[in-house]
């Protein structure tokens, strides 16, 4: 018989759009030292094409 885990006690929270935006902004500044607006603009302009820095993809993956 398997251990009964306490997984049912885990909080699962739906973020508001603002909360998610704040989090992604923080990640952009922490990892890349730039605002999310700047990152998004440069990303869409193709500035990071074939950029292999995992920090870039970590932020890019968070974009919708």
């Amino acid at each position: 018989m398997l251990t009964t885990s306490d997984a049912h006690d885990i909080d699962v929270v739906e973020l508001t759009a603002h909360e998610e935006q704040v989090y992604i902004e923080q990640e952009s500044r922490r990892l890349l030292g730039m605002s999310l607006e700047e990152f998004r603009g440069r990303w869409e302009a193709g500035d990071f094409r074939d950029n292999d820095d995992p920090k870039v993809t970590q932020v890019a993956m968070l974009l919708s």
Partner: protein
Amino acid sequence: MPGDNPHAAFSAFLTPLKDALNCVVHPRIAFSPGGDTVLNRKHNLYLTGHLRVNDAFLRLRGTSLEFRARMFYMIITDDRDDYGPYRVTTRGYDYSVRQTDGAAVIDYHWHPVGLSHEKRPHLHLGSSQLRPDAVLSNKQHLSSGRITLESVVRDLIGLGSVPRYPDYGDLLDLCEAPHILYRSWTFDYERETGQKIAE
């Protein structure tokens, strides 16, 4: 993971992930607005939370390591027998292990869309694990095949993280089973499914 409605499909997707991660940390889970109901939109799942404290990394017991896990997914309709009417399909993952001083140890990535030339699942070795004259670098994509969260949790235990339950191995096998049963690819999404994920 199938469900009778979008929320049920989301729950079926989330429950084994939550249970697996719970073998090594007490997860703090958050997801994008509408992430349990809205169809055909990419959602973010923050399995170790979204709090600014510690950059959403959680400390691994018995180690000087921390772990952060994010997944990306969509809720879709699927009219195949036993696959629907709703199910969640994964659209990427980002699992990261670092030292408590912030130095990267290993990253597990799959980002099938975007500007990177590497669309297949891969690993990045952290700079803290590489000598300055190493042949490998942090920027290299090391092919990994699709890695389940359960496999990553096994790796964390292998790195010294003390499991929270003595029978973690059985728990992880149990959590992983539905994913393995329903997944449609293992190494290369485009080659195996014959489809390309839309940008």
